[in-house]
């Protein structure tokens, strides 16, 4: 009935993929209790920014990936930076909407990807399991967004901002529909699991523990707190740290494989990556991430509290930007555009790259898992 497989190994998986969400929730709640908001936002950012850097290392710093996706790694950022610039100038609400929704989709896909790795490693699940898993992630995550007090207050306010005035009755109906769909889908999913077992395909308990831990974090945070910052810290800790962990091990395994196969042919570009992920050099790996975050901080040209402030405080992004198209360029406008590009465009580029560099069905990707 059960077939265990690990992304890393038993202890590391229990730490990073199953234990981390619980620790992240505790940390976020403790932060809310004892830390000022500026520090809380900085905690979230100093996890988020380095985890973007992990993508840059994998794509631009690792010759194998660079060769495979050269055109997308050039054209993608150009399109994204261009749209972000236009959005910041002329349609900031749309830019915010795209950034937010893509971020949520990205979060869903990352957890789904880890689930796929668990099935790949344990040899569990049927051919249909990937689709059922994806459906499960979408249903559970969207249900949280739709029904939790935290996100309900956000999306209802956003709808009013977009001049779509929903009534109390219609919101309650939406909540009911969402819970009904979620419950129905869970039944369907359980039937699928039963069907898999009947076909002689075992289940990987670590995969379901991982999914359960992830949704515990999201649901508990979204119901327990009314602060998007608290939810954000818990989410960023889980999402960012798990991402950095998988990138580290992916690169290490790929480098180890390359080392066996083509030591002589290693391009210079991979030398840094090779050094960073070498056994015993994890401290350098993390140090470079922190240096990147610090450089990013400096590039924003503002001290820590302003950086945290400028990124997280939505109203500050809203208020000045609707007037930007009218006011013309000035130092304030330039600063806002610059930060918008630095923050939003980098994040969107990270989402885009992750959409094609982590296909678990890809044999070259499988080599690093």
């Amino acid at each position, binding site marked *: 009935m059960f077939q265990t497989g690990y992304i890393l190994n038993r202890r590391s998986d229990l730490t990073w993929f199953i234990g981390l969400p619980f620790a992240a929730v505790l940390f976020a709640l403790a932060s809310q209790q004892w830390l000022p908001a500026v520090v809380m*936002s900085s905690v979230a950012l100093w996890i988020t920014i380095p985890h973007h850097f992990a993508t840059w290392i994998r794509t631009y710093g690792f010759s194998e990936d660079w060769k495979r996706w050269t055109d997308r790694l050039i054209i993608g950022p150009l399109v994204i930076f261009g749209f972000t610039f236009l959005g910041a100038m002329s*349609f900031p609400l*749309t830019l915010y909407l795209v950034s937010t929704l893509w971020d949520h989709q990205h979060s869903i896909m990352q957890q789904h990807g880890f689930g796929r790795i668990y099935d790949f490693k344990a040899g569990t699940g049927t051919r249909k399991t990937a689709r059922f898993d994806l459906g499960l992630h979408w249903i559970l995550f969207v249900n949280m967004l739709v029904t939790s007090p935290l996100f309900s207050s956000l999306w209802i306010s956003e709808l009013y901002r977009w001049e779509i*005035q*929903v009534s109390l009755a219609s919101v309650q109906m939406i909540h009911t529909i969402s819970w009904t769909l979620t419950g129905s889908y869970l039944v369907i999913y359980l039937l699928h699991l039963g069907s898999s077992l009947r076909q002689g395909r075992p289940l990987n308990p670590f995969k379901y523990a991982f999914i359960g831990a992830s949704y515990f974090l999201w649901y508990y945070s979204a119901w327990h*707190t009314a602060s998007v910052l608290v939810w954000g810290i818990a989410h960023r800790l889980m999402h960012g740290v798990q991402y950095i962990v998988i990138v580290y091990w992916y690169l290490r395994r790929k480098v180890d494989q390359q080392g066996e196969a083509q030591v002589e042919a290693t391009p210079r570009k991979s030398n840094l990556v090779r050094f960073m992920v070498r056994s015993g050099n994890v401290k350098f790996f993390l140090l470079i991430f922190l240096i990147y975050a610090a450089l990013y901080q400096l590039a924003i040209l503002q001290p820590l509290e302003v950086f945290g402030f400028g990124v997280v*405080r939505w109203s500050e992004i809203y208020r000045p930007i609707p007037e930007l198209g009218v006011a013309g360029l000035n130092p304030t406008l330039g600063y806002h555009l610059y930060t918008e590009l630095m923050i939003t465009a980098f994040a969107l580029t990270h989402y*885009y790259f992750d959409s*094609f560099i982590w296909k678990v069905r890809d044999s070259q990707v499988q080599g690093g898992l």
Partner: protein
Amino acid sequence: MHYLYRYRLLIVIYGLAMIVACYESGYLERPAATIAGLAQPSPASDVLIGLYPESPMAKCFRADQAMFLTYDLPLAKRLLSEALTGGYKGEESYFYNYATVLMLLKEDYLVVDEAVADWRRHDLTTDDQLDPRAAYRDLELPAPLDPMTIRCLVSSSDGTKIVFARQDNRLWLAEPGPQLEKNGLYGVRQLPERAHQNMISALVLAANETQVVSASLDGDLAIWDLATAGLVARLPAQRAPGQRSEIYGIAVFPDGFQCAVVDRAGMVRIWDLRKPVLLREFQGATRPLSAVAVSPDGTRLATGGWSGIIKIWDLNNEQAPPRSLEGHRGVVNRLVFASDGKVLASCSRDSTARIWNLQSGKSRVLKGHGAPVYGLDLSSDGNSIVTASEDRRVKIWSFQDGKLLYNLATRPTPRPLYAVLFAPDSRGLIWAGGPSGIQLIRP
């Protein structure tokens, strides 16, 4: 096709985003103008209060409404205090609002300092200019408007004489001139004498439109002769010890020689302008009264206040309790009786106007403005009602069914309007606009 497939994600995301962007840039109205102290509660607050009625978030939303719609600072303080001391940290702006309420209530500075420290701890701002101790140092609700804003505007029935006051202490006269036919501009001149030491807050034409009565935030009245543009008389402020006497509304009786005045203390006073002498006074509300209107037959008085309640007083029966019309959720800014006296129009800080059937007590709500509505007038033909709002929009509605007929804005730049009148022929509007200050426009 190969490349389309390869870039399908970008194409789908940005293709959809461009549709949304077109909606945003082409159809979505920009956020309404907000002035320090005049911010608005979230328009979604009613839904969220209904959804989570017992939550601290709902208390904070109700505090927002109390603060911004009815200026009920003690209630806002109580609600915020309950929510925030219960450990609610959902939205940092509520810590700011709490500090602001304490500042506006002129609480002890140590208490304010503590609230500001709490706001600093929970908010991400580093802008010292936002500090309530600086931003709200001398502010009192209602927050003052820009000095050039025209808040008071009255017109004679033939449209030949228009009197208006900006947010200063002076009165202005607008008359048809050579520019009127050409571009709708009136010629304007300032009345030479200065009668008020504080801002003029209300105006009304009296004595068969030969005189104008102005009221100020000092609580005094001044009577002016329109023919000579000279001051006829001044009526000093009437106030009991410890009472506030800012006058917010004035209305003239059909005989043209009596007027009703309402003030911050909630008092209603009726003056005979000929003597001039105070005929009668009574307490109309415990909270400030902000608008007043007299029925066309002079037998009833409508008063509206900061609580949002409108009261209809029977002047022939002093003992009869007033009839209450409840519906507005913010300060009532202006009241106008229809010519038949059976219908009353009102507008409010709750961003709506209402048409009240005085027989049934029911009202039709005119929704559509995104900010408080200050300007209100009924057309002389009885077919239309016009509203002007801080949201930079002037809307003309059908009086019969409340349907929106026109949605207008000043040109070239839309700006908040606080007063608007129908032209005598009901086919045009008189509002603050153009280089001279007063403009006639034909929608």
